[in-house]
C-alpha cells in the first residue's frame, strides 16, 4: 500500500472541483497521473490528460496500477466496482459518508479480486519525496520531510499534525498511510502496520489511533512481533463515551474500544503510548538515539 512514483494512477472524478485541484497538486509532486474518469466527459482531455467513460475503458488503453476516488458518497459503490472490475490493484477512496453497506459490498468484491482498498473517508497516502494520492499537504516542507518514519493515521488533520511534529523534532517521514475514519474500512491499522514492517525504507512507526472499534488491539497483536520501534497516540481520552455502539456491536468487539483498553493492549506489545502527538515525535526521536 506504499505507492511508488513509477505507478500509474487514474483519478475517478477528475473533472470535479476537488478532483481537478488535487490532480494538479499530485502531478506536480510526482504522482504519475495518467488520466481520469467521468462518464459524461469521455473522450475529452482535462488537465491535458485523457478522460474515459469508465475505469474499464481506461484499463483497456493502458496499464493502471492505482485509482484515487473523488466521488460523492452515493456514487462510490458503482465507481469502486468499476475500478475493481478493471483489474486496478490499489484503490484510495477519500469520500466521507459512504453508506457502510456499500463499503462492505465493495470490500467483498475487492477481496475476491485481491484488490487493496484504502478508506473510505481517508485523506490519502503519501510516499514522501516521491508521490501522493489524496488530499494531504505532501508538498508542504514543514509537514513532510523525507526520512524513515512510517505514519499510520485514521484522521487527515491529526495525521498532518503528527507529521509536522516529527519534522519539528528533526525526524523525517518515509510514508504516510491514512486508513480512514469510517467504522468499516478496507485497510486496517494492522494491515498498515504489516506493510510498514515489511517496507525496507521504514525504520520506525508512528501510530495514531482513535477510541472505538478494535483496530488498535488487533494491531497490538502484530506489533508484539515487530523489531522496529513504535510510538502511538490514541485520540479520544477526553471524549464522552460513544453513543454509536450497539450492544451487539460491543460483544463482537469483545468489549474492546475504550482508551484504557487500547493503551494497555499497545503497551503490553511494547509500544510507547504518549499523551499528545508531540510526545510521539519526542519518543521516536529518543528511541532512535
Amino acid at each position, binding site marked *: 500500500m506504499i505507492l511508488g512514483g513509477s505507478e500509474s494512477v487514474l483519478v475517478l472524478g477528475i473533472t470535479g472541483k476537488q478532483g481537478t485541484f488535487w490532480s494538479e497538486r499530485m502531478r506536480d509532486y510526482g504522482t504519475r497521473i495518467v488520466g481520469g474518469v467521468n462518464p459524461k466527459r469521455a473522450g475529452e482531455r482535462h488537465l491535458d490528460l485523457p478522460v474515459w467513460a469508465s475505469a474499464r475503458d481506461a484499463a483497456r488503453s493502458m496499464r493502471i496500477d492505482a485509482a484515487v476516488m473523488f466521488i460523492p*458518497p*452515493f456514487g462510490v459503490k458503482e465507481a469502486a466496482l468499476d475500478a475493481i472490475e478493471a483489474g486496478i490493484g490499489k484503490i484510495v477512496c477519500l469520500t*466521507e*459518508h459512504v*453508506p*457502510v*453497506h456499500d*463499503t*462492505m*459490498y465493495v470490500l*467483498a*468484491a475487492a*477481496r475476491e479480486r485481491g484488490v487493496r482498498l484504502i478508506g473510505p473517508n481517508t*485523506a490519502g497516502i503519501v510516499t514522501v519525496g516521491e508521490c501522493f494520492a489524496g*488530499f494531504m*499537504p505532501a508538498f*508542504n516542507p*514543514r*509537514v513532510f520531510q523525507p526520512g524513515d518514519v512510517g505514519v499510520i*493515521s485514521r*484522521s*487527515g*488533520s*491529526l*495525521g*498532518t*499534525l503528527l507529521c*509536522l511534529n516529527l519534522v*519539528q523534532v528533526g525526524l523525517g517521514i518515509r510514508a504516510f498511510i491514512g486508513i480512514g*475514519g469510517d*467504522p*468499516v*474500512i*478496507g485497510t486496517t491499522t494492522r494491515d498498515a502496520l504489516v506493510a510498514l514492517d515489511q517496507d525496507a525504507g521504514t525504520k520506525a512507526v508512528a501510530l495514531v489511533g*482513535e*477510541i472505538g*472499534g*478494535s*483496530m488498535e488491539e*488487533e494491531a497490538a497483536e502484530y506489533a508484539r512481533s515487530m523489531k522496529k520501534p513504535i510510538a502511538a*497516540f490514541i*485520540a*479520544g*481520552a*477526553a*471524549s*464522552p463515551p460513544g*453513543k454509536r455502539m*450497539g*450492544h*451487539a*456491536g*460491543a*460483544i*463482537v*468487539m469483545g468489549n474492546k474500544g475504550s482508551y484504557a483498553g487500547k493503551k494497555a493492549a499497545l503497551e503490553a506489545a511494547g509500544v510507547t503510548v504518549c*499523551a*499528545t*502527538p*508531540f510526545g510521539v515525535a519526542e519518543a521516536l526521536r529518543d528511541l532512535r538515539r
Partner: protein
Amino acid sequence: MNFEEHAGKAVLRAHGIETPGGVLAASVEEAARAAERLGPCVVKAQVAAGKRGKAGGIKLAADPGAARAAAAAILGMAIGEHRVDRLLVEAQVPIAREMYAAVLNDPAAKGPLLLFSAEGGMDIEEIAATHPDALVRMPLDIRKGVDGQTLAAALPASLPCDRAALVALLGRLYEAYVRSDAELLEINPLVVTKDGRLVALDCKLVMDDSAIPRHAELARTGTPDTLTSLEAKAKALGLKFIELDGNVGVLANGAGLTMTTMDAVRHYGGSPANFMEIGGESYTKAKPALELVLANPRVKCLLVNFCGAFARTDVMTEGVVGAWQELNPRIPIFFTIHGTNEDEAIALVKSRLGITPFDLMDDAVKAAVEAAR
C-alpha cells in the same frame, strides 16, 4: 439513527416477521382503551435506549385498570437521557422459550454478521458470557446474502422451534437489515409461543446515518439524537458540536484533531467546554461555529487549533478573526495553526488581533488552560 421499538417492529412486520398486536398510546386514557381491546397486555416505554425493563419502563397489566396505573407510572419517567412521552401497549404472548437473533455490521470481518442464540431474553453480553457455545455467529457476504441450507446447518442441532420456520425468519431479518441500511437489527427476545409460533417481542434498529438520504420515509419514523438547543442550532448549520462541562472553548478542524485538542486540554490539567469540528466541507463556517462556542457562558477562553490538509487554514482563520472582532468577547484567545496556507493565516492573526499563534500545540493548550483557571 436510532429507532424506538414500535418503529423497528414496523420494519420487521413489513418483512413478514410477526410481532404482538399493539397500539401506541400517549396518555393514560389511551393506554386503558388499548388494554380494553387487547386484554392482558404489556405497557412499554418508547425511548431509543436500552435497559428499559430495569429502569421500570416495562410493566405487565392484567386489565385496563392495571394498564392505567402502569401508564401513569411510566409516562414522564426519565430513562437515560430520554423522557417517556409515548407507550406501546401490546397483547401478552404465551411464551414457551426466549431466543436471540440479530444482524449487524462487523468491522472485523468487513461484512454483515448474523447472530443467533436459542438462549435469549438477557443482554447479548450475558449470553456470550453464560452460554458461549449456544451463540451462532455467521459472517455473510453482502453480495450474496443468506443461504438457507448453510444457515440451517449452522444452527444448533437441537432447537426449541421448527428449523425451517427459524431459517425463514432469519432470512427475513437479514432482508430487513439490508433494505433499511441497518448498522444493527436485533430481536431480543425472539420468542417461541406455546403454540409454536415465532414472535419478535422486542426490536432494536439502528440505521447508518450516511444512508439516511436514501431512506427518507423510514428515517421520518426514527428518533433524532437528543440535542441541547445550541447543538441543534449547530446541526442545522451542518456543524458537529457537542457541549461538555468544562471552561476551555475548543475550535479545531477534523474529528481526530478536535478530539486530540480536547485530550490535550485534559492532559494539561484543564477541562474542555465543547467539541466543535469545522473540517471537511464545513471549513468555511468558522464564524457561526465560533458564535456557538461563545454562546456557552462557562467558556473562559478560546483555543483554536487548525491543521489544514484539505481545509485551508487562511479561510478558517479569516472566519474566526472576523467573528472575533465583531463579537468582541472579553476573554483571551489562543491559536496554533499549521498546514495549507499557514503563513497567510498566521499573518492574519498577528495583524488583526495583535497576537502570535503558538508554534507548538502543547504550548497553546498550556496557555489556554492557565487562562481558564
